[in-house]
């Protein structure tokens, strides 16, 4: 149990307002594009119109001749500095600027630098590129056909196949399938989508020729890791690089990779000795920077005739585009996809994944999730519904029958993960109560008699967040711990710096609440600073809902280190032994004599003014926290939809989200995160797809085609919670930012399929657009 502090202290569990919002709502945030340096010049990217073509020549003369143009950089120029290629986050490499061939539409071909951004854009139009079109590979299922064009001539392996990965007990799984009386199969595509953060990617690279220092203002979710990568790849001494992530307007995984635009801006600044700004347009963001998903999955479940799951078999084809730039810091090519056994207890599972190249933008980033967990949660929650429907068992009942039980934790899954804690039935029951499940089923039965289409979809997902234990997770070898440094000033106020980086999550508030909880210093007296690699302790950044599980834990432990020292100072001030002291929020007092006490503020002052002999001055601590395991948040989401037979439009009537993320730091911020994640989940389920035509032309490359939900499309979200603390986290928290995006797509799709199940519909792929539903209704003869 967490002791609740007073509202004035504002420790854990208080819905205090977000400190960062006062500047955001006044329009006084400081984003990368707000950075203006003296003498700053601008970069613009020349991009390929073709998905696959040989580069026969680039003529930059006309562009260079335009007044105001300072440089035009091509792949051949970069090749001279050995910078034409750069490593990806997945042991692959990717072209910074194309040499030899282009492999996807909108690929970076040349970088124009000019005195202002309009001249740069005009000059980019004057760069003449001679292409010879080559056959295009769009369909990942045809990637390994004998007549498929080989895309990557740079690789020794003359094949479009990237990897084959398998995990689990194949023999036991196959045997379970042979013996099982009931089997169900679902083919489901987790479609290519894009996080489309409000702020696109960009940077200002500022190389100072006098000091030889390079400062990069960067839209980065991982500034420290990026500094190290710039140093290793660019050969610049790491102490001479300072990465500053100022305010970030949403990341969602899109700002984890290093993009060619950043590298080009750095090269241009090193060459010109001037600050170079490069900011993506919206279309460039959608077309070239990290997409998410594109997993083509098949799940089979084997069960007994009374509905006990016996085994799961999964086969997946992963389309990685032209370069494998997936965010993938685990030892497993498909990341956390093998959490696909979900919330259910069964003995056997086998999962295999193959990755292929196609002529599409590179990526496979973790869009608001931990490395393929969204795909996994969607697949198992879809498969369970298909099986329940086949057995004519109510989907809530079916889940209840198969859940891992609370006394089974820590639970080892058949694919090798150890879940820390859970009470899946508790969350399900709460969600069923909140939505009034039985009444809704009655209503549905009556509506069906009248020919009306209504569906109820359940998703009882298990999330895996908080990467990560160093034994499993690293980026380029750097272990995925994270850090916090707390400094208490003489007046008892504090500044803390972390290795993570908020992109809107509210870190300036929540970390301060952890300090308030642990030290009794009011949250309003604690400043949080992140994103400057010259000042913050090293860390791996914010994604995978890892900030609370890692830096949050480090903050608590650093605070406890401070408390230990404070105790020694308090003993000195109270002239007693440390063992005679007890802690109560904000002060130490002598056991049995509560009036004899010293507040943390008095102790802080003494740490600089009245230091006991043998103790260092000052009151500060650093902690680098390597979590022993991931944390496994969970929940049950229930969605109710009505379908308009005339238009095929799906209307989300109600949506209940019961989340369990362990102990909560700030309930208001948690609720805000859930609202945001559900809205993104809604968009993925019903609206979003980065599609390509047969020539490799992007068909989702602007907001005209790639739709963003507005208040009009977004339903009222009803949220609830249960609390099952993580047993291994210092204050029992689990992380929550991504649960709604991981758990909700299955709830939406299950609801639509449920509305149409009596017509024989078993699955509809996302995005479930009105056109798709309308076609199904026609096919099934519901309307003419």
């Amino acid at each position, binding site marked *: 149990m967490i002791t609740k502090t007073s509202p004035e202290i504002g420790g854990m569990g208080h819905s205090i307002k977000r400190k960062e919002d006062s500047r955001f709502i006044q329009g006084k945030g400081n984003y990368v594009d707000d950075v203006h340096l003296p003498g700053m010049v601008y970069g613009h990217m020349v991009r390929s119109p*073709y998905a696959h073509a040989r580069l026969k020549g680039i003529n930059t003369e006309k562009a260079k001749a335009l007044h105001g143009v300072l440089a035009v950089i091509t792949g051949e120029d970069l090749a001279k500095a050995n910078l034409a290629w750069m490593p990806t986050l997945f042991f692959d490499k990717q072209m910074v600027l194309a040499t030899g061939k282009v492999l996807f539409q909108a690929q970076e071909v040349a970088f124009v630098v000019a005195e202002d951004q309009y001249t740069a854009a005009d000059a980019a139009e004057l760069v*003449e590129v001679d*292409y010879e079109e080559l056959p295009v590979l769009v369909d990942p299922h045809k990637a390994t056909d004998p007549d498929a064009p080989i895309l990557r001539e740079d690789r020794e392996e003359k094949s479009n196949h990237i990897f084959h990965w398998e995990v689990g007990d194949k023999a036991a799984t196959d045997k379970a399938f042979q013996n099982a009386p009931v089997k169900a199969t679902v083919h489901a595509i987790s479609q290519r989508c894009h996080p489309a953060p409000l702020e696109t990617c960009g940077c200002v690279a500022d190389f100072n020729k006098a000091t030889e220092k390079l400062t990069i203002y960067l839209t980065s979710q991982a500034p420290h890791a990026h500094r190290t990568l710039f140093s290793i790849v660019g050969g610049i001494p790491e102490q001479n690089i300072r990465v500053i992530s100022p305010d970030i307007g949403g990341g969602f995984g899109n700002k984890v990779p290093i993009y060619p635009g950043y590298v080009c801006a750095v090269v241009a600044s090193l060459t010109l000795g001037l600050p170079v700004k490069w900011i993506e347009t919206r279309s460039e963001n959608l077309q070239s920077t990290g997409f998410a998903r594109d997993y083509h999955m098949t799940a089979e479940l084997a069960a007994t005739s009374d509905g006990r799951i016996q085994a799961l078999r999964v086969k997946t084809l992963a389309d990685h585009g032209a370069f494998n730039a997936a965010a993938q810091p685990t030892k497993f090519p498909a990341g956390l996809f093998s959490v696909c056994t979900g919330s259910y207890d069964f003995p056997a599972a086998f999962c295999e994944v193959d990755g292929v190249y196609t002529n599409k933008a590179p990526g496979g980033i973790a869009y608001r999730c931990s490395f393929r967990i969204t795909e996994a949660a969607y697949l198992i929650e879809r498969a369970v519904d298909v099986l329940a429907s086949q057995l004519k068992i109510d989907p809530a009942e079916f889940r209840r029958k198969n859940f891992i039980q609370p006394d089974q934790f820590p639970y080892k899954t058949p694919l090798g993960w150890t879940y820390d804690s859970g009470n899946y039935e508790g969350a399900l029951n709460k969600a069923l109560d909140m939505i009034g499940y039985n009444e809704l089923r009655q209503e549905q039965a009556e509506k069906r008699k009248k020919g009306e289409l209504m569906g109820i979809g359940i998703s009882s997902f298990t999330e895996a967040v908080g990467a990560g234990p160093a034994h499993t997770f690293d980026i380029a070898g750097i272990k995925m711990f994270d850090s916090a440094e707390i400094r208490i000033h003489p007046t008892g106020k504090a500044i803390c710096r972390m290795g993570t980086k908020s992109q809107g999550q509210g870190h300036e508030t929540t970390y301060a609440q952890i300090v308030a909880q642990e030290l009794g210093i009011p949250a309003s007296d604690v400043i949080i600073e992140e994103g400057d690699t010259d000042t913050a302790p090293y860390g791996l950044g914010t994604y995978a809902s890892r900030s609370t599980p890692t830096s949050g834990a480090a903050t608590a432990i650093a605070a406890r280190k401070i408390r230990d020292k404070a105790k020694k100072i308090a003993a000195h001030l109270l002239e007693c032994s440390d063992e005679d002291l007890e802690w109560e929020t904000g002060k130490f007092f002598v056991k049995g004599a509560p009036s004899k006490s010293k507040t943390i503020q008095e102790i802080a002052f003494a740490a600089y003014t009245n230091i006991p002999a043998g103790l260092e001055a000052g009151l500060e601590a650093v902690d680098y926290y390597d979590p022993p395991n991931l944390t496994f948040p969970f929940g049950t989401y229930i969605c109710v939809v009505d379908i308009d037979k005339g238009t095929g439009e799906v209307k989300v009537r109600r949506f209940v989200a019961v989340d369990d993320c362990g102990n909560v730091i700030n309930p208001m911020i948690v609720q805000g995160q859930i609202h945001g994640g559900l809205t993104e989940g809604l968009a993925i389920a019903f609206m979003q797809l980065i599609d390509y035509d047969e020539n490799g*032309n992007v*068909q989702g*490359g602007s907001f005209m085609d790639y739709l963003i939900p507005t208040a009009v499309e977004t339903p009222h979200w009803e949220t609830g919670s249960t609390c099952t603390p993580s047993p291994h986290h210092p204050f029992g928290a689990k992380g929550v930012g991504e649960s709604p995006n991981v758990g909700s797509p299955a709830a939406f799709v299950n609801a639509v399929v449920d509305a149409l199940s009596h017509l024989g519909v078993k699955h509809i792929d996302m995005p479930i657009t009105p056109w798709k539903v309308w076609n199904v209704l026609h096919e099934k003869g519901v309307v003419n």
Partner: protein
Amino acid sequence: MRIEKTFQVKEPLDKVWDFLSDPRKVAACVPGAKITEQIDEKTYKGAISVKVGPSVTDYKGEVTILRLDPVNYEIEILGKGQDVRGRGSASMKMTGKLTALADGGVEVTSVSELNVVGILAQMGARVINEVSNIMFGEFTKNFQARLAQPSDAAENATEAASTPIRAGSLAWQAAKGVFRRDGT
């Protein structure tokens, strides 16, 4: 993408055929298009400028007569071009057929397979369809008008490039077309 169009002209069959089988005359009717050079009997060099909103694409390429069938009044033409600034390519294979009508006029039927790669193609089928609808509408008007002119005038007209399509209005008309959907 497949585009099928039919229109009628009030001229005799052989006159229409003479016109249709001469790429120089036909090109002069296409908004923004011109024939710049004849390579041989069946091959011509040409250019076409298409502007949709802020995006201008200047295709340069070749037009080849694949099949000329004066007995059945059928012609098959292949046009291929690349944007001069390397922003994409397009190709179109068009089959044109003339049918004599009872009233003495002629029905012109064309079936085109259009393949667009690059910036323009990102706008998707709905925009390209609308753009081709507008261009074809202009083409039909020009075709009828030029056909009605005395043959000398028509001959002279081929020397000059035809008027490029009204660029500004094209995007607006295409946008209206998307929402109107009445097939104009």
